[in-house]
């Protein structure tokens, strides 16, 4: 496909309630510079049901233009409804580039869309730039479990598409006074074109929602916590800090904590302000998920553990003494008893 405009699109993923997920707003921040360099507009694409809040957020966080597709068939994400809607929009407007958050849904839709458009897709990017020589987007992403970085171009096909990790880019400052051009597209997907059906929702732990991707503070436990009870001091520290509990795969595989808490290559990729790794050795697959963290703190009794290579603050010692002591200090500071 030929690009008809120099516009850069950001797919704004919405929740079932019609709010924008953080990653889309982060990508509006990251996309601004790229759109300016490409000489086009920064366009937010909002698909969902009753998405006024997401449209507003897209404007506030920097979109020049918002294209909206609404309908009850979009309330809960399905591959078919979303891919069909995105494809119809791309056919009509032909942007030059598209950024999609590398969430479960983004990585479900991205390859479907790019394949239908017969164009390139670069998955799970952690750096974005414009290639000076060619003017193409230079997509940089980790490969080999984070051991190698690759910069990828899509020179001859349009649009050039990438999924981008949540948490890598920070949301910009919201500006309530901004306005954007809003375009409503009336596009619907017939029920029979949606070939998957939600039969049942199985909540992992009743009432407990583990929002690792959106968390500002994460306290994670690994094999070093020794058992399910070992997560008690971890949870207490997380609670004192207003954070969320994460875990290494070793802890999850041992059955000490639910998989929803797992951080890393096969778990969640996180980008908190503070990541505290307790009793985690720092295997490359775990590190793959935490490199977007602003500050990493490691507590481990093995001085040679690889986690210390990436930690801003490393404490060598027994987590069962250090973690409670730290929790106590923090509670004292905050005046919690």
């Amino acid at each position, binding site marked *: 496909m030929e690009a008809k405009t120099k516009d850069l699109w950001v797919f704004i993923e919405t929740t079932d309630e019609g709010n924008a997920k953080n990653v889309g707003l982060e990508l509006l921040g990251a996309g601004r510079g790229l759109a300016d360099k490409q000489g086009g507009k920064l366009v937010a694409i909002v698909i969902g049901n009753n998405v006024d809040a997401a449209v507003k957020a897209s404007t506030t966080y920097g979109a020049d233009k918002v294209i909206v597709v609404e309908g009850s068939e979009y309330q809960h994400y399905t591959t078919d409804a979303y891919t069909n809607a995105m494809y119809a929009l791309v056919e009509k407007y032909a942007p030059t580039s598209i950024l999609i958050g590398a969430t479960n849904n983004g990585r479900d839709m991205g390859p479907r869309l790019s394949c239908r458009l017969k164009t390139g897709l670069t998955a799970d990017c952690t750096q974005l730039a414009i290639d000076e020589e060619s003017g193409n987007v230079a997509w940089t992403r980790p490969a080999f479990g984070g051991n190698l970085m690759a910069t990828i171009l899509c020179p001859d096909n349009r649009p050039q598409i990438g999924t981008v990790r949540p948490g890598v880019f920070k949301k910009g400052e919201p500006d309530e006074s901004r306005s954007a051009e809003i375009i409503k597209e009336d596009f619907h997907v017939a029920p029979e074109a949606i070939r998957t059906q939600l039969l049942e929702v199985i909540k992992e732990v009743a009432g407990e929602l583990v929002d690792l991707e959106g968390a500002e503070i994460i306290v994670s436990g690994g094999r070093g916590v020794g058992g399910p009870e070992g997560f008690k001091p971890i949870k207490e520290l997380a609670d004192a800090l207003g954070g969320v509990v994460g875990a290494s795969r070793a802890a999850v595989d041992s059955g000490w904590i639910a998989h929803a808490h797992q951080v890393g290559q096969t778990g969640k990729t996180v980008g908190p302000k503070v990541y505290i790794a307790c009793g985690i050795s720092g295997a490359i697959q775990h590190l793959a998920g935490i490199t977007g963290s602003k500050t990493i703190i490691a507590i481990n009794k093995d001085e040679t553990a690889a986690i210390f290579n990436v930690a801003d603050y490393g404490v060598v010692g027994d987590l069962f003494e*250090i973690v409670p002591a730290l929790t106590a200090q923090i509670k004292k500071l905050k005046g919690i008893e």
Partner: protein
Amino acid sequence: MNMLVCIKQVPDTTEIRIDPVKHTLIRDGVPSIVNPFDAYALECAARIKDKNPDAKITLVCMGPPQAMDALKTCLAVGGDKAYLVSGREFGGSDTLATSYILATAIKKIEETEGKFDIIFCGKQAIDGDTAQVGPEIAEHLDYPQVTYAHEAFAEGDLVKVKKEVDEGFEMIGVKTPCVITVTKPNFEPRYPSIKSKMAANRKEIPTIAFADLESIIDSGRIGLKGSPTKVKKTFTPEVKTGGIIIKEDTNEASAKVLFERLVADKVM
């Protein structure tokens, strides 16, 4: 139930080291393994077969001749037949070209094995980590897809898939034919027995070469030339160094020093 599982042979990324001087990947001596997620995909298929004894599992792998080893390993744990897609024309393919070749090869294999009801893939290959080939195969074949599956249950032409989502799981219903990509479930794949290993070794694995697909494939859409994405450069990630190490005489003292530093540096 006629099932196909896509198997990729990958280097064991846990064994990869970085050359400290040249800052490149040291691949020498790194063992090749079956992509772990593909082993889970095969286990999902095998569990369906456990309940439906006349079900059949065919394996397909695109790769160099030594990828035959990965297929042999998988034949020993539940595969009935296996095909290797191999040829230098296919080299250098990105995910779009790879998925196109695999989708075309699948049509070719169906001439012998019959139409597949479920095509299983791993969620992602651990060398590229792209998670694209599965959904792209689904798109080429115009099949519905369910990604991030932990387990699948077949009931006639309906497949119920336990899919991982942020809040836990969803049970998704999808009609065959479909593509399912499998992430790490909370069970381990089964092991081969000595007998099944020997039987697998004796099995003939046909190779599908470019010539076998020539009449049905667009040669402009495969290999390096047919790949829309191009790798401009690779480099090793910067390793953060120079962090502060705290190791006082007692753990209490260490915790206190950490706390004071965090407060002083306004970390929290």
